[in-house]
């Protein structure tokens, strides 16, 4: 050590000639980095109020609050996140978890206000001036906490499918199901989409954690046809899944199927709590899913229940309509048997006519009508009474009941809904060449897109814009469909274009059978006249109040016969609602 060590530190003076590290803020602005985690912005149109951001926030900085101008609707809670910057630590976990990617952060970090209240606000709603900033932390879809891709469902290959009525969907393996279930963020927006308001996030989470029996018990709280729904439900819930905005919705239907299918004996899994027996009895007409649901929950509440069914098997359209490759008979039997085991009396081959109806009115304290839609709509064209013109529901019922059916080598199915797809795909399994003729375009078809794809894979041809004109006899026991083509006429914004016949052109199609599948209607001829007079109807369906009671006190109705959304889960929901209605009716609450 010497003089050098004393003088050396003076070298620091060199620094005087250099630029400082610091800048003069705000005179010299400094933009933060591209992915800086600064103040949040939220695209309120894209946000669905799912609350995932609030759920993941480690500091409980986010409250979900109602926002003026945003109304709750299906798939949108109507709430929006409000962030308290007194709590926020700018971690961005909320951004990484947002399923719609509506929430992001800007790279804005300077924002000075006098009052602390200014730092609690709803991004995107309370305008702060940095909403337009493009830079800032964003979610990367591929590398986020959200799992956007559905675990694919395995199916039989099309060439194998048409060889038999074996179930097409093969179901998830345990690991697949748990992985799929784990995608659910638990927002619960789907519940509003389910007519029966099943506790979807709860039973899905139970599957994710391997508690299958608990999962099925949760389902049975309001749906004794969980396995049916697991196989064929129209799954409205899935279209409200928050993951569906940027990816695939959770396979709610397949998960239900997975959990319920694991148990061959429901008696061993479902823990029922049965109320004390009561001395009131309810008569239920029609053993469809709606009637049987009402029967199940009425029985659990201690009421005496008798179900009257015209057909030789219970299940309604799920027995007679839905083809077995979608809904096998053993599955139906397992579910119905469990319902009956709760003390429900079932009378089969019991067609209720006006006289019997009166008997039932004497015998029971309340009646539930769940007769469905048993009469097909007809085409209303000349020559329709040709013996080779058949109706889809009659055709499907015969196939499902193993009755002999003869459809020949080539058929045309008229219609574009799910029943038409069923008729077409069943015909393929009976080795016929199949054409589906629909009056609108393929994109307008009301059938489930999976059904349309499945039919096409199986070799069904779909003809668009076909309008039947008349039916004529054809040689060799065949039948001729004379049809015209439609042009689509725009009906203004928000309305489906209408098919209008192009006049002056006629085409012919010769086939063995014409299968008409353009819908079904209610047959209310079983009601005695005086009762029928008192029961209001609306466009062919029985009118009911919010508790499923008709305008005739003590007579309730539900399912297809009353509900315009004619699907199984709506019928189940109606049946459940009617139970509450009937109970209140017994307690003297008429409305």
């Amino acid at each position: 050590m010497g003089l050098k060590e004393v003088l050396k530190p003076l070298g620091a003076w060199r620094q005087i000639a250099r630029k400082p590290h610091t800048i003069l803020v705000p005179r010299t602005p400094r933009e933060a980095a591209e992915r800086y985690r600064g103040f949040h912005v939220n695209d309120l149109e894209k946000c669905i109020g799912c609350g995932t951001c609030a759920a993941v926030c480690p500091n409980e900085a986010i409250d979900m609050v109602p926002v003026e101008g945003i109304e709750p609707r299906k798939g949108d809670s109507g709430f929006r996140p409000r962030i308290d910057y007194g709590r926020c630590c700018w971690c961005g976990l909320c951004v990484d978890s947002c399923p719609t990617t509506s929430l992001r952060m800007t790279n804005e970090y300077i924002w000075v206000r006098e009052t602390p209240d200014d730092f609690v606000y709803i991004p995107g709603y309370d305008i702060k001036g940095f909403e337009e900033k493009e830079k800032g932390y964003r979610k990367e879809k591929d590398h986020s906490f959200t799992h956007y891709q559905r675990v694919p469902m395995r199916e039989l290959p099309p060439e194998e499918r048409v060889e038999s009525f074996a179930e097409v969907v093969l179901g998830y393996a345990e690991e697949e199901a748990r992985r799929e279930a784990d995608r659910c963020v638990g927002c619960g927006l789907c519940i509003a989409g389910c007519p029966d308001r099943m506790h979807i996030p709860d039973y899905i989470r139970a599957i994710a954690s391997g508690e299958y029996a608990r999962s099925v018990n949760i389902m049975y709280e309001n749906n004794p046809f969980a396995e049916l729904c697991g196989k064929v439900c129209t799954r409205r819930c899935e279209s409200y899944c928050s993951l569906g905005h940027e990816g695939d919705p959770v396979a709610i239907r397949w998960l239900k199927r997975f959990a319920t299918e694991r148990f061959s004996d429901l008696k061993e899994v479902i823990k029922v709590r049965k109320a004390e027996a009561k001395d009131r009895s309810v008569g239920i007409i029609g053993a469809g899913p709606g009637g049987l649901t009402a029967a199940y929950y009425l029985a659990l509440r201690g009421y005496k229940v008798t179900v009257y069914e015209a057909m030789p098997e219970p299940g309604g359209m799920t027995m007679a309509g839905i083809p077995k490759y979608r809904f096998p008979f053993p599955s139906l039997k397992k579910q119905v048997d469990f319902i009956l085991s709760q003390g429900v009396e079932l009378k089969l081959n019991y067609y209720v006519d006006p006289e019997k109806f009166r008997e039932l009115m004497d015998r029971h304290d309340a009646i539930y009508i769940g007769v469905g839609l048993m009469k097909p709509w007809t085409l209303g064209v000349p020559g329709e009474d040709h013996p080779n013109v058949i109706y889809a529901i009659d055709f499907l019922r015969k196939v499902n009941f193993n009755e002999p059916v003869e459809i020949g080598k080539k058929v045309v199915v008229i219609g574009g809904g799910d029943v038409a797809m069923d008729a077409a795909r069943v015909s393929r399994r009976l080795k016929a060449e199949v054409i589906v003729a629909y009056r609108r375009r393929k994109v307008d078809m009301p059938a489930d897109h999976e059904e349309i794809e499945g039919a096409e894979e199986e070799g069904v041809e779909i003809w668009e814009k076909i309008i039947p004109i008349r039916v004529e006899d054809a040689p060799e026991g065949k039948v001729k469909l004379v049809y015209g083509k439609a042009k689509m006429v725009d009906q203004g914004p928000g309305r489906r274009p209408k098919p209008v016949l192009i006049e002056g052109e006629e085409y012919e199609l010769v086939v063995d059978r014409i299968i008409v599948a353009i819908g079904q209607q209610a047959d209310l001829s079983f009601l005695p006249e005086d009762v029928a007079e008192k029961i209001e109807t609306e466009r062919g369906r029985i009118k009911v109040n919010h508790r499923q009671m008709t305008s005739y006190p003590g007579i309730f109705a539900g399912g297809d016969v009353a509900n315009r959304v004619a699907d199984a889960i709506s019928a189940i929901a109606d049946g459940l609602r009617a139970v509450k209605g009937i109970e209140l009716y017994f307690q003297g609450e008429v409305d």
Partner: protein
Amino acid sequence: MSKEEVRLFIGPQHPGVTGNMSVEVLLRGDTITWARTHIGYLHRGFEKLMERKIFIKSFPLVCRICVPEPDTNEENFARGLEELAGIEIPERAKWIRTLVLELSRLQMFIMWYGGIAGSMGLSTPVQWGIGDRDYILDLFEELTGGRIYHIYIMPGGVRKDLPEGFEERVLKVMDMVERRLPEYDEIIMENAVVQKRLKGLAKIPKEWVDEMGLTGPVARACGFPYDVRKDHPYEAYPHLDFDVITEDGCDAWSMLLVRRREIDLSIDLIRQIIEKMPRGEFLAPLPNVLYWKIPPGETYVKSESTRGEYGFYVVTDGSDKPRRVHVNGPSFVHGITLLERLLVGQNIADVAPIMVSLQTCPPEMER
């Protein structure tokens, strides 16, 4: 305490980088006869809080256990959970993590380098250290979206890939730091004041290293070649070429030498990482973090922080929250066990340089 003794609180403010802590000493004249470390109301209940948070929610928390060097916490906790949950992370993620850890070490050592000078009243290097460290924080800002709390290392890997051209910018900052270092050396290492005061100061008896479990630069300054990066390599360290740095003066000057050489080593490692880093994925798919349950188990993971061996003991019980997390920060032994004994017999004017030499981070003592 006899009548000739004076009780004095030193800190919690002092010109240096010891963090928020003070020592209570008894003085006989200028000489310390007894010392106690106080970290005041620093306890924020990190470990307890974590027991009530789902795993992912603890990441914005763990980084706060050591403000200037948060990444060790993130990395340790993430690695612990990955081990317990059986998650394999992509190769590139390991390299990016190692880059982050070394950048973190580097900026901490640069700040410390200024800080040790500050503890002796030389305030220029303190400003330099903080100023130059900021260029590394710029890199963190660009990479992670945050300057101080990065919340970047997550179970499964890292949150985002390197931005376009990031590597070149890292190298540029390395060149800049390297150009600056001789100027620091000139006013710190080659400064008569520093040499006079640090050489022979705070001499640590070698056997204390084992007895007390000293690690990091403190142990290496006593000639113990212990470095977690070498002895229990993790992340990409097995693929890096380096030697453990030791000195054997066992005093504050040796600790300074070790840390000064660590700066060079970090720069070298950062360059190696950038050269060798493989391409590919940076984040393994995780279960749904909102409901992530980890099977019962326990693990202890450790890494080399600037202060020494840093560890996380994590116990899981099959639920979605840890049953117990225990953070083992080296400052506990250095700042309490060692400091309290080392101060006895020292001059009051040396308290600050001794504290800084042991390089404490008080929040890791009381978690």
